[in-house]
């Protein structure tokens, strides 16, 4: 091409814009500015309206927290319920043990299975296989998509059975449950869970074959860590760069910042910056706590115990689904119904802290309650808030490698990179924002 024209292209300012991100939960947009073949700006704009949960929890009773916060998310209500009940129990000086603790892990297995499977099959796999949507993919991969829907349904059934309802479960309470299932109830799930476990293994094998961009960053991964278990509800908050704290120390190390272009706060580690939560973080920090079958499947899929390629999160999600199926089967096999469906919990003037592993990463709740159990103050930090800076950082680093792609292909790659985090924007915008700027 004539050198003048070539020089013009080199100096061009390009903007990659997606006004409304598809195949992510919630309402967000992506904006990337490229000038002279360098990335000049990246914004993950979240315009989903803020929903003020932290404000309207004030004045409610501590027993209402799991039911109210469950409404923050239709996909991960269990995560909210679990973080809420653990925080309230912490405030009241209670620890739930035995079969009730097991049931809480089991219902979380259901949510991981349902949420991860939906993401793997319906939201992310199309990107890797070059399909515009799962519907387009379904035409060519009918059996595969059916398998995905059936596997997702398994997760929903676990949540329904233990939670009383698929969406916004009604059976979870501070202290335990309103009604505990019998051993016979749970055993009903066992046959289908065995199918699910096998389907999950097939899923790991399927996604392992996807083409993965060669992209790694030096992330600070943050997750719960427990001495005996792959973490759900309990553990210390640890990172791949030396952080190791009790949940109640969270606010001393993590801080939320407002950015003008997003209705969701950005969370950072004090004096360090962006960090990374979610399946890849859990995997890197807890690999040897995965069920042996899941560890084997991960290795067979070409993963090392440490993985820093966010595109491979899709493999890790599949590995976690497998782990959840195996773990669920183990727990059901060992289950004996508790004598009472819940322990008694009496409120006291205190602050309580809870942090559990939602499908997308750690979900932190802090409540201050008075001696009557009235909520005085609430703070909720969802995983997607915590990943926002990392998503933007990824785009800063990712785009330069693919600048020569045509605009539409580059845009798609960037969206795929955002979907690595399975972002849940509705969760991220739950908080109280004092100033709302409208364009």
């Amino acid at each position, binding site marked *: 091409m004539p050198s003048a024209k070539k020089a013009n292209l080199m100096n061009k300012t390009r903007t990659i814009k997606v006004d409304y991100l598809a195949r992510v939960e919630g309402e967000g947009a992506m904006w990337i500015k490229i000038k002279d073949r360098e990335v000049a700006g990246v914004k993950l704009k979240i315009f989903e309206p803020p929903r003020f949960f932290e404000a309207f929890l004030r004045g409610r009773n501590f027993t209402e927290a799991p039911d109210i916060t469950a409404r923050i998310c*239709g*996909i991960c209500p269990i995560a909210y319920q679990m973080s809420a009940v653990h925080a309230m129990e912490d405030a009241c000086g209670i620890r739930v043990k035995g079969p009730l603790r097991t049931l809480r892990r089991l219902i979380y297995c259901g949510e991981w299975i349902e949420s991860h499977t939906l993401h793997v099959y319906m939201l992310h796999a199309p990107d890797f296989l070059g399909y515009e949507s799962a*519907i387009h993919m379904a*035409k060519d991969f*009918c059996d595969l998509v059916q398998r995905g829907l059936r596997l*997702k349904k398994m997760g929903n059934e676990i949540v329904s059975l233990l939670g009383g309802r698929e969406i916004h479960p009604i059976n979870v309470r501070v202290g335990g449950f309103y009604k505990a299932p019998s051993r016979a109830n749970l055993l009903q799930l066992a046959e289908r869970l065995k199918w699910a476990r096998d389907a999950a293994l097939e899923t790991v094998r399927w996604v392992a074959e996807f083409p993965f961009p060669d992209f790694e960053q030096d992330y600070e991964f943050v997750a719960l860590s427990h001495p005996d278990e792959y973490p759900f509800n309990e553990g210390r908050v640890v990172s791949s760069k030396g952080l190791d704290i009790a949940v109640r120390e969270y606010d001393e190390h993590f801080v939320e910042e407002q950015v003008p272009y997003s209705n969701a706060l950005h969370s950072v580690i004090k004096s360090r910056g962006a960090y990374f939560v979610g399946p890849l973080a859990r995997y890197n920090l807890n690999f040897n706590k995965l069920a042996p079958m899941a560890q084997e499947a991960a290795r067979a899929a070409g993963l090392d115990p440490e993985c820093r390629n966010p595109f491979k999160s899709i493999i890790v999600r599949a590995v976690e689904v497998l782990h959840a199926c195996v773990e669920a089967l183990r727990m059901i096999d060992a289950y004996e119904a508790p004598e009472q469906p819940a322990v008694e919990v009496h409120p006291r003037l205190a602050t309580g802290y809870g942090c559990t592993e939602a499908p997308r990463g750690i979900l932190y709740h802090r409540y201050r309650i008075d001696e009557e159990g009235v909520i005085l103050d609430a703070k909720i930090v969802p995983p997607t808030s915590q990943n926002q800076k990392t998503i933007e950082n990824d785009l800063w680093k990712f785009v330069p490698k693919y600048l020569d792609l045509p605009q539409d292909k580059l845009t798609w790659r960037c969206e795929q990179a955002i979907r690595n985090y399975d972002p849940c924007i509705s969760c991220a915008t739950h908080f109280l924002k004092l100033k709302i700027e409208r364009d």
Partner: protein
Amino acid sequence: MTAPRQILVIGLGNDYRGDDAVGRVVARGLKAIGADNVRVVEESGEGAALIQAWKGADFVIVIDAVHSGGAPGSIHRFDAESQPIPSSFFHYSTHAFSIAEAVELARALNQLPAKLVVYGIEGKTFDTGAGLSLEVEGAAAELVSWVGEELRTNSRSQRSDAEDRRDRP
């Protein structure tokens, strides 16, 4: 005479988001008619659950609110056999998929019922809070009446075509 056709009516929506409740409201109206061969269920509208709900059903009627910019209270009818359902009309959530995507996915998977009709009522407001707007409440009553008639027609045992033609207005 053959047995009357089994019909599944699914009302979609959220009782606490204004006009988004209308699908459920219509379903409740149709349930009150009490036809033997008609089963009425209510669903939130999540696509994967819908595909499960209509599995094995032969004739399905789905009712949901739509948001397409049209006049509040207008009623749209889509016959899934003959046309794709526009996803721009039906929003569920951005994470899960709506009735529109559920229909297209089911079509791709050969899991569409033999007959599937989707009615969409144009909503006026979807704000938090219970209660339908006046226009939508009126449209709901109208739809219960129309669909009620469609159900009654299908409830009768099969008759000759000539009898049908004679009786049709």
